[in-house]
C-alpha cells in the first residue's frame, strides 16, 4: 500500500524462438490503472500481471492459467530462479519471469507439461484429404 510500490518494473525473458534469451522489460502502471482490483502490486499474482500484459501491451504473449489456486500447476514457471505456480506468486519490483525449463519450451512462458504425452495425438487427424486445413 506504499506509494513508491505503485509502479514497478517487471523483467520477463520471452523465448519467442529457441535460443533467444533476450530479456523484454515491461513497466507496469498502478493496478487500478491496469483495471486490476488491488491497491498495490503485492496483491496481484504473476498470472494476472501476464494477463494484463497480453491484454494491454503484447497481444502475442502466451501463458497458461486454469485453477488460480496453486492446485493444477498448469501455470508453473521459473520466477526469480525458482519454479513455482504463477497464480499464487505475488508480484514485486524487478521480478524475473522465465519458462520453467527451456528444453520443454513451447511459447513464451508455456512449457510442455502434458501428463498423457505417450497417448496423445498431435498431428492433424483428417478423415479425408479435402478436410485438411489449407
Amino acid at each position: 500500500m506504499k506509494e513508491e510500490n505503485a509502479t514497478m518494473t517487471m523483467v520477463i525473458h520471452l523465448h519467442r524462438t529457441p535460443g533467444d534469451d533476450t530479456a523484454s522489460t515491461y513497466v507496469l502502471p498502478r493496478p487500478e490503472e491496469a483495471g486490476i482490483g488491488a491497491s498495490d502490486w503485492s496483491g496481484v499474482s504473476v498470472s494476472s500481471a501476464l494477463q494484463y500484459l497480453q491484454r494491454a501491451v503484447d497481444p502475442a504473449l502466451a501463458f497458461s492459467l486454469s485453477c488460480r489456486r496453486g492446485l493444477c500447476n498448469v501455470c508453473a514457471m521459473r520466477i526469480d530462479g525458482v519454479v513455482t505456480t504463477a497464480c499464487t506468486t505475488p508480484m514485486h519490483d524487478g521480478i524475473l519471469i522465465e519458462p520453467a525449463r527451456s528444453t520443454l519450451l513451447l511459447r513464451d512462458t508455456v512449457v510442455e507439461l502434458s501428463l498423457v504425452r505417450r497417448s496423445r495425438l498431435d498431428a492433424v487427424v483428417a478423415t479425408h484429404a479435402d478436410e485438411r486445413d489449407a
Partner: protein
Amino acid sequence: MDSWDVIVIGSGAAGLVAAWHARAAGASVLVVNKSLVGRSGATITSGGGVSVSGRTAIGLGFDANPDDTDELFFADTIRSGSFLSDQRLVAAMVEGVGDELRRLIADGAKVSAPKHAPGHSSGRGVRIPGPSMQRVVTTAALHAGVRFREDFQSTDLLTRDGAVVGVAGLDRRSGVVEALHARAIVIATGGATSNWSLRTAPEELSGDGHAMALAAGAELIEMEMLQFLPCCLVAPDMWRGLQFPWILGPQSGVRAWLLNRYGERFMARWDPERMELATRDIVAAASAAEVFEGRGSPNGGVYLSWAHLPRDIVDNFPQWSRSFSADWRWEGFDMTPLVERIRAGHAIEVAPAAHFSLGGIRVDAEGSTGVPNLYACGEATGGVHGGNRLSGNAGAQVLVQGKAAGRSAAALARGRSGEAAALVDQEQWRSVQARIKAPFERADGIAPFDMKRRLGQLVDAALGAVRDGAGLAKALEELCTISRDDVSRLACRNRDPGWNRDWSDALECVSALPVIESALLSALARKDSLGAHRRHDGKAQPATNVLEHGLISRKADSNALVHRTEPVLHPFLAPA
C-alpha cells in the same frame, strides 16, 4: 483411422470415467480437452467429497451407519433440491455410486471414511482430495488405452441429417482448425461458472459444451440455478474467490460476525437463531441482499469480522482444524498477511462466489441428450441437484453419469461398427471453418478480452445470489445487443495462429453468449424464489404451486432461444 467410436469432450472426472467405460466396452476413444489433461477443469479444485449411503459404504468396507439406506440418501437429495430434481437421475446416482467408488478404490484412490456433512441426515461423505481424484481417473484412462487430444478448443458439433457425427475446433498449439469424427460424442465440459467474474471455479468453464449441445438441438434445463459459496474473498485480485474466510469462520463453527456497512449483524433478519452458522445458501442470499439494498462494502461485499473475539481464537485455530497448517498455507497461498489483518482487528470483505452449475444440458439416466449420437455427463448437465446441491453429490454425480454416458455411447458406436461412419458434408464444414476463423481473420474491431470482461460484469450484476426482474431484463437486452452487433466485430490483435489467446478468448465469448442468454431467460421466467434462485422482487414459491422445470432450446433453423416449462414429475417422492 477415419473415425473414432467415441469422442469425449472434457477431461475432468466425468469425462475420464466416461472414456474409461467406453474403452472397457471395446470402443476406440479419443478424449479432447481445451487445455492439458489432468491440469484443468473443476475436479482438481473440488474438495473431493463423494456421497454414498451408509449401507453402501459398509459394503465397501467402511465403518458407517447401517440404518442409512439409499432411500434416505435419495430423500435428502430431493428435499435439499426443493423437489425440483429429475428423480430418475437422482435414483440412478444413489444406486450407482457404490460400484464406481469401488472401481476408484481398486484403481488406487485413497478414500477417507464417511463424514457427516450439512444437509445429509447421516454420515455419507467419503473424501478423495480433488487432485487425487483427477490423478486416479487420468491414470486409469491412460492404462485402458484411451487416446488424447490436448489444447484443442471444441466449438461446434458437426451433424448429418440431425445426428451428431463429429466435433470441430481450434488446435491452440498450431492454430489449425480441424474436424474430428466419431460415431458418438460425450460432452463432459463442466459447468458454465467462468462466466461469473467472482467465482471459485477455474478459468476455462465458459459453457462450450452447453453452447454446442444447444446448437445441435439439445435442451438446457434449470439454467438459472447456480450454487454460490458464501464469504469468499473479493480483493485483492490474487485472492479473489478464495473461500478462506468462510473456512476460518462459519464453516468451522467459529463465531465470526457478518456485518453490513452500518455494522449491523444482518443475519438477524434472515436466520435469527443460527445467524452466521445458517446453511451456505441462506448466508449467500443474505449477503447478496445486503449489497443489493445498498448496505454493502466498497468492493461489493459485506464484512466478516473476528474483532469481538480474543486473538487466541484465531491464533489457536490451526491446532484443532485440519484445514490449515500453523504457517497459514492455504491451497497454494501464504495467507499470513490476511490473518495479520484479522488479528489487528480489521474486518474482511467477503461475498458469495459462483461455485457450481446446477442447471445444464438435459439428459436421461443413460446420459442421452435426445439428439442422435449425443451424450452428456457431469456438471455440464442439469437436473440432478434441482435447486440446491448437497455436499459430495457432485462427486457421486460425475462418477455415475460418466459411466452411463460412456457405456451408452460405446454401445451405440459398437452396434454400428460395420457401417461406414457418417462424415460432415462439405458445405457445413466450410461454414463451420469460416465461423471459427472469423475473429482471427478480422484485424480491426473489438478485442476479445474486452467482451469477456463486459460479460463477466453483466453476469455478476444480473445473475448474482439475488436477482430481480428489472436487472435481468436490462442484462438480457444488453446481451442481445452484444450478440447482434458485437460478435461479428470480434477481432484478434495477434496475427500468429498458434497460442493465440485473443482467438481463444473470442471463441469462448461466442460460446458463452447463448449460455448466458439461457440463464437470463430462465431466471426471468422463474418469477418466485426457489432453491438457489432468489428473486428480490418475488416471494418464496408457494408450496401449493405446481413445480415446473425451465427448459431452453434453439428454434429450428434460427439462433433464437426459446424458454418453455414442463411440470416436474415426482415418481418416487412427492412434496409433503
